[in-house]
């Protein structure tokens, strides 16, 4: 589902910083993988590259059979729109929109009709147990609830891949556990391929596979038979 071949990312400034250095990685369909490493190890860079938010300096990335290199900005956006759902540490909900409007956002961007988008959003908010908060705005919700809305938004387009950037990093441990359970539920019921960047050992160990990064290189790739 996700293929990285010799992917490097360099940032050119006063001195060149190599964030990722000729990385090879393959993630199969339906896998749930955690990406760990110290700050500056390159894990967020890798997530951004896989998500098509950034482009590699060299190497090849393939998502669900589609090569990202050489794609125009709008084509890259279409890949994101059709294949990838994002869950951010700071939720990144639009503060002026209600929960249902936030969830419907990617659907409207794809050109869904108002009625269809609203029906789908209701279904998803029910799924994340926020059916009673549909018309609330983000600042009226707790952190956990906000992340649920963000997950509902990520799922709205039914993406084959879910990318999480520290999805529990901004939550207390109890709420973090709830969110992690929700992500596992999604993985189980929808069979999505999930890649989570995390500092949290518990989150990392709950995944089937953990990839460890250091100084832009993969230094470990651990698979578990019975995760969470």
């Amino acid at each position, binding site marked *: 589902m996700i293929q990285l071949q010799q992917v490097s990312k360099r940032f050119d400034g006063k001195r060149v910083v190599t964030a990722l250095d000729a990385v090879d990685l393959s993630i199969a369909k339906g896998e749930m993988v955690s990406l760990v490493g110290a700050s500056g190890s390159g894990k967020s860079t890798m997530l951004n590259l896989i998500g098509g938010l950034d482009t590699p300096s060299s190497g090849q990335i393939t998502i669900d059979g589609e090569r990202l290199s050489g794609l125009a*900005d709008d084509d890259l*956006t279409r890949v994101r729109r059709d294949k990838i759902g994002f869950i*951010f540490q700071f939720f990144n909900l639009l*503060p*002026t*929109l209600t929960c249902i409007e936030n969830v419907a956002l990617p659907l409207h*961007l794809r050109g869904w009709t108002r009625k269809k988008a609203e029906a789908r959003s209701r279904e998803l908010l029910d799924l994340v147990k926020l059916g009673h908060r549909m018309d609330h705005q983000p600042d009226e919700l707790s952190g956990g609830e906000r992340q649920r809305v963000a997950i509902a938004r990520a799922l709205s387009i039914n993406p084959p891949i879910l990318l999480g950037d520290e999805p529990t990093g901004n939550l207390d441990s109890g709420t973090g556990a709830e969110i992690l359970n929700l992500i596992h539920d999604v993985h189980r019921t929808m069979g999505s391929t999930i890649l989570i960047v995390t500092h949290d050992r518990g989150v990392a160990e709950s995944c089937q596979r953990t990839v460890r990064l250091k100084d832009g290189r993969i230094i470990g790739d651990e698979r578990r038979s019975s995760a969470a």
Partner: protein
Amino acid sequence: MTLLRLISFQYVRKHKLRWLLTLAGIVLGVAVFVGMHTANQSVLRAFHQTIDRIAGATQLQVSAGEAGFPEEALEIVQNSPDVRIAVPVIEASVNPGRGNLLLLGVDMTGDRSLRDYDLENNNDDAIDDPLVFLAQPDSLLVTRIFANAYGLKIGDKLPMSTMAGPRDFVVRGIMQSGGLASAFGGNLAVMDIYAAQKMLGRGRRFDRIDIAVREGVRVEQAQERLRKLLGGGYLVESPGARGQQFESTAQIYSLVSSITSMFALFVGMFLIYNTFEIAVSQRRSEIGILRALGATRRQIRTLFLGESVVAGLVGSLLGIGFGLLLARGIAAYVGAMLSEVYGVAQNVEDVAAEPWLLAAAITVGTLTSVLAALIPARDASRVDPVKALQKGKLQLIGQGENMRRRIGAIALFALAVGCMSMSHIRPLFYLGYLLAVMSAVLFAPTACNWVTRTLRPFLKWLRPVEGALAADSLIESPRRTSGTVTALMLSLALVIALGGIARSSYKSIQDWLVIALNPDLFVTTNETLTSRSFVFPPEIGEGIATIAGVDLVQMVRTVRINVRNTPVMLVCTDIASVARKAHLPPREGNPDTLYNEVAQGKGVIVSDNFALLRKFKLGDVLELPAPDGTLRMPILGIVTDYSDQQGSILMDRKVYIEHWKDTAVNVFRVYLDKPSFEPAVRARIQEMYGGRTRLFVFTNQDLRAYILKLTDQWFGLTYVQIAVAVLVAILGIVNTLTVSISDRKRELGVLQAVGGLRSQIRGTIWMEALAIGFTGLVLGFVVGAIQLYYTLEISRTDVAGLRLDYQYPVNIALVLVPVILGAAWISALGPAESAVRGSLVEALEYE
């Protein structure tokens, strides 16, 4: 100073575009201020220079209004023991083909004692013997500038149209540049006075007598004695006094330009206010850090005020530069307009600002900037260091502040209404106007919020994501938006007011044209109907009356005379025939007896604007300066008449001839038996007189079109205002959007991350700009309705004396909608591109 260098300079360096836009606010205001005032000053200076250069050694001038006076007056003056030299002069502006030429008719026998002609190549032979010059009535002295422009050398012929038919004039001398030859921008020609009388059809009349007094006689003493000698109908003044008349003529334009430039500065102030509010909002974390490090509130306030002083100074200097460029265009426009409407001769050759104006521009520009920065600087000093890092809070206007603004707006509006009810006390009227504007300004953020909230469902319906986000961006950030919307509102309000006046004037003038100007043909001496340099003898009118198909010929003499130090138009014609043909109902006066009494010379009729502006009422006695003494005539009626901006007095032609001893005619108004006779009569007039005299025949339709064109020129300012409004819209919206994009960096990043295409991101920015434009339009249209009321009142009572109906300029409003929305969209193009080109990763990390 250190803070200014360390903090402000860095910020400015980082936000160059925004600071350029802020400067643009000041530059715009100062440029209009400097441009309009420099143009006015330059036109006045050009007029004074022309007078001075032509005057030469003249110490006193005798005149009797535009109609001139009979030659006998010259003898009286020459015989005065106080007078050393007295020479007659005729001065007229003519057009030999390539622009205006100031024609000076002089008597060479005495004139060289007053004026130095300084001919090239010592060719003074041409006028050394005045008798030779006189013996050749086709002689012409021209300036080097004029000779070069027309490619003339001595002995060459210059064809000109005269009242005695087309004539060739021979260049007998070329005056060297400088002195007299530089008057009227060098477009000057001198001819013998008797040749000038013939050329212009003036009969045996002079325009003025230039005088040098005897040695040992004080000028004031000579002036006083000559006044007594000549009587009240003559003006005996120093040459410089003529400038005052021009200044009075240019007064209306000066008032309009002052209002426009002050308005431009006021609008500029809101642009600056907006930028500073945004800067405070964006730099709150920096302010928080400074406060945490020990900066006092006062230091923070001083920091922002210091920035405003620097911005004000730089903006003012740039504004002066642009203003001087602008002045060239405006001076040409004002000069052309005054020449066209008033026939006042001047030629702007040197457009330069006076030092006091430049100092005033810098002071006004800097003060405007500081005033605009006062509230943002206060807000900055009140930033709580703890809250400083909380994003977005400063964009909101607190409930308390909102409430205070609303209460303030309502209170000011109530006071304005109170003042309106006492508008007969002029200071209270103007105070009410100011309060109404302030009330609108205070209420603008609330109104802006209401309009945007009303707009949101529509935008959301149009584009569910882009529309809703665009509206939300405006609703959530009143500080970012309200300054721009207020500036746009004020700017558009003025456009609506000017447009309203133009529309009402058009309608009133059109109605008046139908009733008052109903002859079928107009026979004049000039292609421009306002020029009065050439005049007809009455015999031509008598000849036209004999043409088959002509029912009636009205001979009209129009001359400008001074009443209460203001030049007003005296219109003299056969009043009995006017009563028969024009059916003009008086506003005041008895319609049954009025025309009959005026025809008998028992009084005069005055125009409504004359009565309103000069505070005359029915029955008042006017003192009119005639060559045979002051003529006292009661006002028997007041009518609507738009012939002249300063007002007009309608008198029977017989009375005029009796007192002015002038039978000349400016226009023959020809009524036909049937309108269908028009082409035949027109052709016959041309056939009878076309080759023999200078004559132009206009149909009623031509004349109406001409008058409406003149009206258009006066309201050309409306288009300048629309241009200013568009500039304001572009500057303000670019500023607001630049900041909006910076504030919404993460939001736009999220939008792209979840699948928003570049076109969709552009869409939301464009819609935000359109929403700002729309809100500005709505508020501008509402405030414009109030502004129109005040403008009509000011125009009626203090400027033009015109009673105009209140008519909202729907057509102008309809034009403004696409213009402003188009400008808004264009303003959004740059910011939208910068929004889609940024790094997504950075946007999502942005805090």
